[in-house]
């Protein structure tokens, strides 16, 4: 299973975190700190998998953001790369050519999208169209939204 999802900027700032395994607040900060050091230091040509504490962390860089997912040692890393790409493509479709600023100012919407793709650390939906449809429908439900 996926234990957590982490989005980091090039400077090490956290843009999104989602935890599917129990980590206390203190442990979370520690993990983020460790992984930032590990991943941000890697050269560009190296492979996208890092072994860490007995788990594997799969990461991919999109522009200025690193998308990281931590999985068990016996999971399929190439599939996780596909899941990351799936997530990014859906974000792209939803925000219309997404950039980091979109994710900063609309982080709650990014979380809503993530919740339609992963639950309990497992993939929920493989069709981008379905995910987009569900998100839009829920947007309509909240159409009577006040200004945030």
């Amino acid at each position, binding site marked *: 299973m996926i234990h957590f999802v982490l989005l980091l900027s090039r400077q090490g700032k*956290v843009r999104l975190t989602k935890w599917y395994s129990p980590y206390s607040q203190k442990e979370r900060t520690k993990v983020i700190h460790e992984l930032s050091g590990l991943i941000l230091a890697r050269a560009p040509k190296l492979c996208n998998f890092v072994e860490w504490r007995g788990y594997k962390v799969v990461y991919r860089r999109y522009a200025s953001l690193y998308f990281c997912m931590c999985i068990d040692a016996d999971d399929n890393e190439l599939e996780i790369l596909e899941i990351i790409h799936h997530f990014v493509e859906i974000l792209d479709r939803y925000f219309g050519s997404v950039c980091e600023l979109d994710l900063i100012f609309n982080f709650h919407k990014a979380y809503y999208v993530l919740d339609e793709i992963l639950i309990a650390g497992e993939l929920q939906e*493989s069709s981008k169209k379905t995910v987009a449809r569900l998100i839009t429908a829920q947007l309509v439900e909240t159409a009577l939204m006040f200004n945030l």
Partner: protein
Amino acid sequence: MNPFSSGTRLRDMIKAIRACKTAAEERAVVRKECAAIRSSISENDQDYSHRNIAKLMFIHMLGYPTHFGQMECLKLIASAGFPEKRIGYLGLMLLLDERQEVLMLVTNSLKQDLGHTNQYIVGLALCALGNICSAEMARDLAPEVERLLLTRDPNIKKKAALCSIRIIRKVPDLAENFSSPATSLLKEKHHGVLIAGVQLCTDLCKVSEDASNHLRKNCTEGLVRILKDICNSPYAPEYDIAGITDPFLHIRVLRLLRMLGHGDADTSEYINDILAQVASKTESNKNAGNAILYECVETIMGIEATSGLRVLAINILGRFLSNRDNNIRYVALNMLMKAISVDSQAVQRHRTTILECVKDSDASIRKRALELVFLLVNDTNAKPLTKELIDYLEVSDQDFKGDLTSKICSIIEKFSQEKKWYIDQMVKVLSLAGNYVKDNVWHALIVAISNAPDLQGYSVRSLYKAFQLSSEQVSLVQVTIWCIGEYGEMLVNNVGVLQVEEPMTVTESDAVDVLESCLTHHSTDITTQSMCLIALLKLSSRFPPSSGRVKEIITTHIGSVVLELQQRAIEFNSIIQRHQNIKSSLVERMPVLDESTFISKRAGSSQANISTEKSNQQLPSGASLKLSNGVAKPAASPLVDLLDLSLDDTPVPTSTSNDFLHDLLDVGLTNSSSSASGTDILMDLLSIGTPVQSNTTPENGSSIKAKPNTATVQVVDLLDGLASNGSHPGAQSPVHPSITAYQSSTLKITFSFTKQPDKPQVTQIHATFMNLSSEAYTDFIFQAAVPKFIQLHLDPANSNHLPASGNGRITQTFTITNTQHGQKPLAMRIRIAYKVSNQERLEQGQINNFPPGL
């Protein structure tokens, strides 16, 4: 309206925070916002609660504490509208984790939301439950989730399936309830539901044997059909990724088939065809295709596949290995490790490529490749492989050197067939990376050298040559010093020259030069310096003309501030000056260490280490108690004090094998002599004390360091009256009555005592624990605390599982030394911890009824 209400919108707050130039500014802004949010919460401000939580989440992501917002999330979840619930659940999932008790309060809201009419609200609840529920919540809400598995809406169905996965992970007992709904999920058409359903079935198989059998019987056909359909399906735009229809579903079905086919020949046969089809048909130019092929190969390796299929799999791996993409190569190396057990010949064919990967620039690939190479080594290819690895050792990175060195040393040790090759390789490794070589490795080298008399001359000469080139490698220096000391005359007189050697002349003063330079070099550590001193002593006997010079060198260290060096210098000096007659017999050639006992001792003590370390880990931290099952100060035993063997204050649970070898190599200093098996050394000493032979000229009689592996002689002399007591401590008949130390309704402990007549202060206590309740105890740990004037040494218990109703007993022995024997009686406080049906229990007590005279 309250002037402090959070007037800023979320967007504005984020802008303000991003505009801060320093951390202090940011903290100030955050503090202000938090204050506003807090007051808004305390005023129960309904309008802004949504905004507050959104802000809190952002602040949380920056790393600031946000506990005060947790109750607000709960309030939002309990409100009626969809937007509030949505942000409330999101806040819940972000700000809380499953270990917090506050989470339990949500259970009721979740229950109501799971039965809501609005399907999106049901979806929210399932999502939250699936992401952070705890075991109790899982148990409470499992029936609701089961019900939802049977709805018609695919969105709810798939979320319920994934939520069930979390439930059975937290509470595996509930797995049976989900078996049949899971199988019906596999008949759906909707891909989302299928993916979730297949995943649920996979987790069921992991957790429950019955579910696994059930699925195997009923679902294999269906799964193969699903796979066939998506494999052969025409272009489907909704699910297409890189030309393949729904690779995610492909991969999950393959994984489930692996679980079902594992160990079952029929199922494996049934899925042979489809696996062959997927393996050959999938294109591998894009990552999606490679991901499917990877999973397919894993499945082929995991089931009872035909050999044709296996060959197909290994060919795919071979292709992966030569792919330029780093990811693919990493994945291939990983898989090849598993493939070795299946077909090692095929993997051997790729050996050269794998060796290339060891030198790759990517750290992850290097690591994998090295492990794979290690698994590939066999007798035939050991030599060329070792050569390659050693060549690479020269140029490898610092952080990789440690790993590489230890692997090379293991290979050399395991596969060396001739001693000469072994010695050669070890000398090379020591010259290149001596600082990374572990102690027991070069100890083994010394044992080997001492066992190969015809190669001793060769060894000492090679070491001498190597030393000239790489004297900064500590282990190399230490081995060289030892060998020069032992075999100095072979070095100088060119004894036992082999054909392949070049002629070399080394004079006596050259040899002494080497030792002197080591001794005086600024970076030499104390261990090495001590070894130098004793080697010099040996040389002064072997090279009489240089004796004067040696004496001078030793004399300079008489005033050393390091106790060890001073002591040695003074003693050796006195030997040279006054005891000329026994000097030569003192430093005679070292007796040959028996390799087989050395190896078995090492294996035995490393096992002992594992058990003491394991039992050490069972203990809670923070010891005001003298801890059980572990290693208390063996200084408690007067025997060890006498022999001056272990001087540690803190127990060192590792490297017991170094004990006697350290003594042999005269390296028995404070740090290195381990106290973990103080009893081991004793047993060694005492067990060879049985054939008593009196001998008036012991070897090294003046040295306090005993050599347990050598003649029984000096041991008897040193032990002097104690050896006559025989080799077993505590073999006497009990002279004190047994007592019931502790009795409660659930536990009874009895102590029986033995003493040795010549050691009135020392008592051995044999404790027997009996379970008086009707349930068995596990993880049984006994701890004891004693007053300051008593020393306690606990041996490990014979087990930590205590069957119920006195059906079995646990026994444990410990040794007590009462330093105020005769003046104060024994007293002890005890604490017993154990588990009964997964709940922990603790019992404590004080024992005052020790018999007098202990």
